[in-house]
């Protein structure tokens, strides 16, 4: 099985691409927006303006490219590293900031945003993604579900159970494994004996596709095929997006303890944003002026989102015991009384 790739690491495309100019520009802007947030988020965390944050530098194309294949009524089911995918599918930037501040207001996404909250227990989102996909069949406008997990997550039992359930139930779900080389400190080759995750699809009876996760074009085209297949009622697809975690696991992690950061620097050459920019530049679709103007727009957008987040009142102590049940029962009411005014 070959790895799907349209744009090599140096960004030099020999022939034509399966995307139009508008799609390329829209894709670049979405990837650049994701990079912009991630870079600022790390700084904000260092300033104490965000909590512990899971960066995704290097994985923007894998997340944005796949998420761009969804229609607005489709659902996106993320792990904790999918801020870029969530943003792409409509999660407001201010909501994302509040989430990473662990602010209660960040937990309730707007009703029209079809993104589930970030999942921390590894791979637990996947069986739920299957259920959500099956539920879509009972609605007038059936939806497709795109669910994300990392290479480490493929070791979990829930990964197996979800893929098996999805295949047996022919659920309209697309599984995206971002194989970024690392599960905190454990490299992929110590996570699995066969490092080609896509090979596992055969065992479940679904198509498996290995794609260059740093090639936006390849990610989008592959995801579109998988989404179309799911929408047509032909069942799930496993996409392995091969990428590289250029960042630490989280802002609390110190990768120097387990990997050679010279190698990490070398892998910067394969990162997706510059690659896509090279494609646009070569086609005359992007230049320094547009870049400068767009960066100013992104600064402004993030500034506004931070202002919204900063203006959100501090949560009250009582919020920690709210929304446990639809109707609080006596024990909850007692807890609420104890915390009210605290």
């Amino acid at each position: 099985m070959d790895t799907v790739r349209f744009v090599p690491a140096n960004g030099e495309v020999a022939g034509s691409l399966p995307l139009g100019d508008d799609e390329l520009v829209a894709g670049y802007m979405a990837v650049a927006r994701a990079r912009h947030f991630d870079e600022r988020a790390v700084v904000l965390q260092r300033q104490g303006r965000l909590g512990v944050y899971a960066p995704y530098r290097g994985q923007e194309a894998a997340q944005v490219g796949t998420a761009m294949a969804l229609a607005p009524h489709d659902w996106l089911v993320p792990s904790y590293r999918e801020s870029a995918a969530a943003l792409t599918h409509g999660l407001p930037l201010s909501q994302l900031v509040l989430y990473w501040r662990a602010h209660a207001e960040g937990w309730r996404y707007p009703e029209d945003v079809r993104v589930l909250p970030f999942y921390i227990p590894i791979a637990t989102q996947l069986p739920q993604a299957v259920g959500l996909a099956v539920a879509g069949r009972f609605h007038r406008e059936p939806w497709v579900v795109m669910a994300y997990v990392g290479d480490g997550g493929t070791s979990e039992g829930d990964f197996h159970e979800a893929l098996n359930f999805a295949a047996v139930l022919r659920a309209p779900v697309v599984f995206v494994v971002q194989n970024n080389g690392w599960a905190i400190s454990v490299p992929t080759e110590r996570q699995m004996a066969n490092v080609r995750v896509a090979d596992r699809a055969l065992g479940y009876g679904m198509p498996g596709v290995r794609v260059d996760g740093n090639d936006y074009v390849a990610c989008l085209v592959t995801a579109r095929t998988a989404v179309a297949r799911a929408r047509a009622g032909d069942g799930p697809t496993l996409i392995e997006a091969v990428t590289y975690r250029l960042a630490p696991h989280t802002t609390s992690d110190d990768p120097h303890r387990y990997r050679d950061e010279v190698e990490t620097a070398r892998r910067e050459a394969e990162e997706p944003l510059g690659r896509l920019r090279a494609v646009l530049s070569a086609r005359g679709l992007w230049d320094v002026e547009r870049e400068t103007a767009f960066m100013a727009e992104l600064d402004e957008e993030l500034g506004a989102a931070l202002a919204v987040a900063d203006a959100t009142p501090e949560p009250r102590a009582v919020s920690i015991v709210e929304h446990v049940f639809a109707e609080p029962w006596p024990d909850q009411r007692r807890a609420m009384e104890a915390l009210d005014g605290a």
Partner: protein
Amino acid sequence: MAPEAATTPLPDRAQTGVTMVQAINDALALALERDPTTLLFGEDVGLLGGVFRASDGLQERFGPERVFDTPLAESGIMGLAIGLALGGMRPVAELQFAGFLYPALDQIMSHLGRYRHRTRGRFSLPVVVRAPYGGGVHTPEQHADSPEGVLASVPGVKVVIPSSPARAKGLLLAAIADPDPVFFLEAIKLYRSQREVIEADYYTYPLGQARVVRGGNAVTLVSYGGMVDVCLKAAEVAAREGVELEVIDLETLVPLDEATILESVKRTGRVVVVYEAPRSGGFGAEVVARLAEGALYYLEAPIVRVAGWDAPYPPFTTLEHHYRPDAQRVLAAVRRVLTA
């Protein structure tokens, strides 16, 4: 299908009544009939109708889209249920035995009880998980566990355990109508051990209310599920000696109806708490803690627990009755609190 099918009693029902498993089947049929978003699934629940036949005939009646078999994986079943609920459905999942639910604990503890809270109320999970529990019928290893205490310790999930056919039907229908996740544990011993004439139509009993099933003034027995029968038997024997025991059936462990227990114990001053799970850390321990907090000065004697031993439930054998509390052990405890 014609709605009459669910509401017309079987020929013998009006006279001989139904077993608890039939009452559960009744409730499931009514729920599927009333609400097209209700789905029923689990291992062997479709074609076979469940290993205890709780879903007998329901796939045939409501179709394989709404009543279906899943692959054999409990975490997958629980995750599927959560996802279906996120997508606007009302899933009723069956776990074949409560002793097999442990692989699903990650889904239960990390998500099922947490979803409403971690989305500030955007998502409700109206999930019902049915599971047969407990001993008394010589099941193989691992089939007789009583993990209600584990479930009751998870914030955000309710735990309901019926003790009779009529109660099972009304409580199960209430659980299915509830906006929050409910574990509905069914004592295997009770599935076919008693018959009761029940209402054929849809009805519910409220969750969160304990029930005084037999009034008395000497000692309060607090129990639930399969232990209610045991307590009633003990009460009958005691009554012959002129000692009136009050028997409380908790029915809902979470949310717990503390008021009913406290009222009774304040009146009797003596209490025995009966449950078949291992004694330490079992749900009965929570009941005892509540009594210590709320009724200590009314007690005439130390509280006594009659429970399973702190050992795994014994499989198959005739030794089972040494583990699972019976009327004799309850009566011995009653004597202790009366003579203290």
